[in-house]
């Protein structure tokens, strides 16, 4: 048995703190045994010469090594001053109580460990244990922020604070997908996911350290160009025009996708990734809204056509900037409500978290697309032929819907109505597992992070999907319904990485596509399994 790594080693151990050996990851069932010995591609040593890469086999941020001793000391100083700010109500009022409590009253029963998919699937690597990073932060706070902490450290858990520990802690905060599954099993309500989030925040707001996919190419690009995909308003309009033509082939009649219609009832904001990667999702919304006779519009203003808000994952300031932009666009369009498309974190960010920011005229009602869709499907206004969805379907629950907002039933009611071969995963609903792409993982692809995600953080979801379909005949196409762009991205990558389309005939897509696929009066199916249409 390997000796178990202790939190204090984060500042001591030389080299990489954790290496996953071949065969250590949780085994996969046939026909995927050939992946059992696979580990993430080794990092390119030339590329990481000047990068802090001492945590594990991958890199999420890639922090440059400080050039001089002075620079290093300055970074340590800024970390400590940021850490102090984290506990001051003037500087961090957002989650202060939860953070303080989580650090102070954890009874260390370790229930959370069994709830964490990353920890479990990694072959129980100690550094991925939910409390590992919390314990590091807890000890640093106790020792360096409390009076007399240095004297009691021997008893309450010792740790040395140096640059290595700080750099490792920064990387480590990006090995948790903030799914909050651990928080829901904690007997006293400690939230380790929140602790990881606060660590990310400290690094971003106080030290300028964040993965470039979230910051420079994320929120910054989003606010400047209009979308974190880099698509400007013209490009967005272009791609929607193309989607419109595609959809008309499916319906056999004109499809209208309205832009900037002032006074419409609904402003629909998609995750702009849909326009590029899953155009049929955007199209299906248009078909369904048109069929249901809703008054709605898209916005072509900068950021008005991209619902994402990466700030939710790492930076309160960026979160606020994006949320204010969204609400202001809706205010100027004079819509009655904003409907957030199939995007989990955008739901949480715009509907719930930014509620405290949007006052006065900016407080425009915001609704989940799942609820809008449920309303359309169950209203009886439209007729559906569930037999068109005559293929096995399972539902992936995005964590933000179920564990952070409590939207559990609408999506299921829809599926029970239109997908006769719907089956649940085990476990599902509020006990679901993360797709492995949560909190930005799905869009982070620097170095070999995609490998790590597919092999470690998405592994649990892959197992769950395979198990949901295990009694189906081999040639049947299977549909994983994931009503969230981020989750779809992660599931697309799982299917590609493990060659699951060839081996298990796994396909994936959103919820609205399934609805339109069963809608009466369509000329062609919107869902295709490769080249094969889902109905004739």
């Amino acid at each position, binding site marked *: 048995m390997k000796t*178990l*790594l*202790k939190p204090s080693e984060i500042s001591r151990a030389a080299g990489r703190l954790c290496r996953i050996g071949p065969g250590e990851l*949780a*085994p996969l*069932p046939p026909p995927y045994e050939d992946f059992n010995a696979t580990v993430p591609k080794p990092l390119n040593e030339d590329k990481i010469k000047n990068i802090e890469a001492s945590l594990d086999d991958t890199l999420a941020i890639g922090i440059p090594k400080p050039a001089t001793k002075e620079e290093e000391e300055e970074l340590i100083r800024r970390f400590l001053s940021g850490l102090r700010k984290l506990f001051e*109500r003037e500087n961090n*009022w*957002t*989650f202060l*109580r*939860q953070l303080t*409590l989580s650090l*102070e*009253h*954890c*009874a*260390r*029963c*370790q*229930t959370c*460990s*069994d*709830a964490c998919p990353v920890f*479990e699937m990694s072959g129980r690597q100690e550094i991925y244990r939910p409390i590992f990073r919390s314990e590091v932060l807890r000890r640093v706070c106790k020792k360096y922020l409390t009076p007399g902490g240095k004297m009691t450290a021997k008893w*309450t858990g010792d740790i040395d604070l140096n640059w290595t520990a700080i750099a490792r802690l920064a990387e480590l905060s990006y090995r948790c997908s903030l799914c*909050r599954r651990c*928080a*829901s*099993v*904690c*007997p*006293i*309500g*400690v*939230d380790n996911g*929140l602790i990881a989030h606060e660590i990310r925040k400290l690094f971003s707001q106080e030290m300028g350290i964040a993965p470039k996919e979230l910051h420079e190419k994320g929120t910054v690009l989003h606010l400047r160009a209009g979308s974190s995909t880099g698509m400007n308003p013209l490009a967005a309009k272009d791609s929607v025009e193309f989607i419109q033509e595609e959809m008309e082939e499916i319906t056999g009649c004109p499809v209208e996708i309205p832009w900037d219609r002032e006074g419409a009832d609904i402003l629909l904001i998609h995750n702009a990734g849909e326009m590029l990667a899953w155009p049929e999702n955007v199209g299906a919304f248009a078909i369904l809204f048109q069929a249901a006779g809703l008054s709605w519009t898209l916005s072509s203003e900068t950021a008005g056509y991209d619902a994402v808000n990466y700030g939710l994952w790492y930076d309160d300031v960026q979160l606020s900037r994006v949320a204010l932009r969204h609400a202001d666009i809706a205010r100027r369009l004079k819509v009655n409500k904003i409907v957030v498309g199939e995007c989990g974190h955008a739901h949480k960010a715009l*509907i*719930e*978290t930014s*509620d*405290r920011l949007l*006052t006065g005229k900016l407080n425009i009602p*915001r609704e989940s697309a799942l609820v809008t869709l*449920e*309303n359309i499907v*169950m209203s009886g206004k439209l007729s559906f032929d569930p037999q068109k969805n005559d293929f096995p379907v399972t539902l992936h629950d995005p964590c933000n819907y*179920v564990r952070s*907002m*409590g*939207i*559990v*039933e*609408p999506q299921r009611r829809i599926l029970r109505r239109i997908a006769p071969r719907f089956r649940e995963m*085990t*476990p599902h609903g*509020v*006990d679901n597992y993360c797709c492995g792409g949560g909190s930005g993982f799905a869009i982070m692809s620097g170095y070999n992070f995609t490998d790590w995600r597919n092999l470690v953080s998405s592994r649990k979801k892959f197992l*769950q999907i395979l*198990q949901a379909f295990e009694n189906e005949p081999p040639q049947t196409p299977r549909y994983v319904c994931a009503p969230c762009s981020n989750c779809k991205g992660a599931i697309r990558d799982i299917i590609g990485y493990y060659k699951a389309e060839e081996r298990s005939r796994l396909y994936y897509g959103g919820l609205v596509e399934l609805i339109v696929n069963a809608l009466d009066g369509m000329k062609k199916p919107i869902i295709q399994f490769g080249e094969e249409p889902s109905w004739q």
Partner: protein
Amino acid sequence: MKQNMNILLSFITILAIALVAAAAAESQIAGNVLTGIAPYLVLAVFLSGFVYRIIRWAKSPVPFRIPTTCGQGKSLPWIQNNPVENPAGPLGEIGRMAAEILLFRSLFRNSQTEIVNGRTVYGSAKWLWLFGLLFHWSLLVILFRHLRFFTEPVIPFVMGLSALDGFLEIGVPALYISDMTLLAGLVFLFLRRVVLPQVRYISLFTDYFALLLIAAIASTGLLMRHFFPVDLNAVKTLAMGWVTFSPPAPAQANALFYLHLCFVFVLVAWLPWSKLMHMAGIFLSPTRNLINNNRSQRHLNPWNAPVKVHSYEEYEDEFRDKMKAAGLPVEKE
């Protein structure tokens, strides 16, 4: 091994406290301090620490509703919601907190995954829940039973509880069920920390110490009850003396009783500064005690610093003449 050091250190600390207590039994002055001054000192430390921690927690802002939602939230009228696992109102919230505190609902959620023949199997893992619940409830019952030393006449509820607790009527004096379940819980919790390498590697001195301290209190108590009886009347006189702020001089020092007392004092004084404060923290935990009405109710943020607003209208009122003179357009004439 560092971990074994932690266990050893905890034992040594317990022994040291025991030695101090035993020494106090030998000395008249120390005995007087222990029974006359220490109780009030300990109580003062406990109360001030407890209040300090609670106030600090209660004062930190909770602007966001961040409960973990463990069921369907309140939504459209025809969608069945789960009022307890995802409370939409105060009643549901009280239900949720009650289930959490009285029954350890969340701990009951704990599951364990195993891979059996290459297949992931989800099993239940309820042992920690069971023994945790036993331990905590026993502790509460024992605490209540001790009220018989502090009230005169003894509250009927306490008498009833003691009678119920000892209804098996094994031995004289009757064996209390709660004592046995407390010991069972302690043994489980301690062994779990020591035997499971994954739990032991991260356990600290304070984790073992808390368990051992309670075990020491329980065992000295049991020894006094069943093997080396103490003069209960003297104990009652002493306890009543504390309550009425007139502690009598100890009649006859009993080493076992002093041990028991010393351990209790250490526990009570240390509690507010330790992880044992989860007994109060759970009530304040925002992932549990918040109603999930993010979308049905408006929550304004009371923690923002007041912003002095100078609106354009006010600005124009103030400078209208000057603006006109400079030829700037104004909204109101």
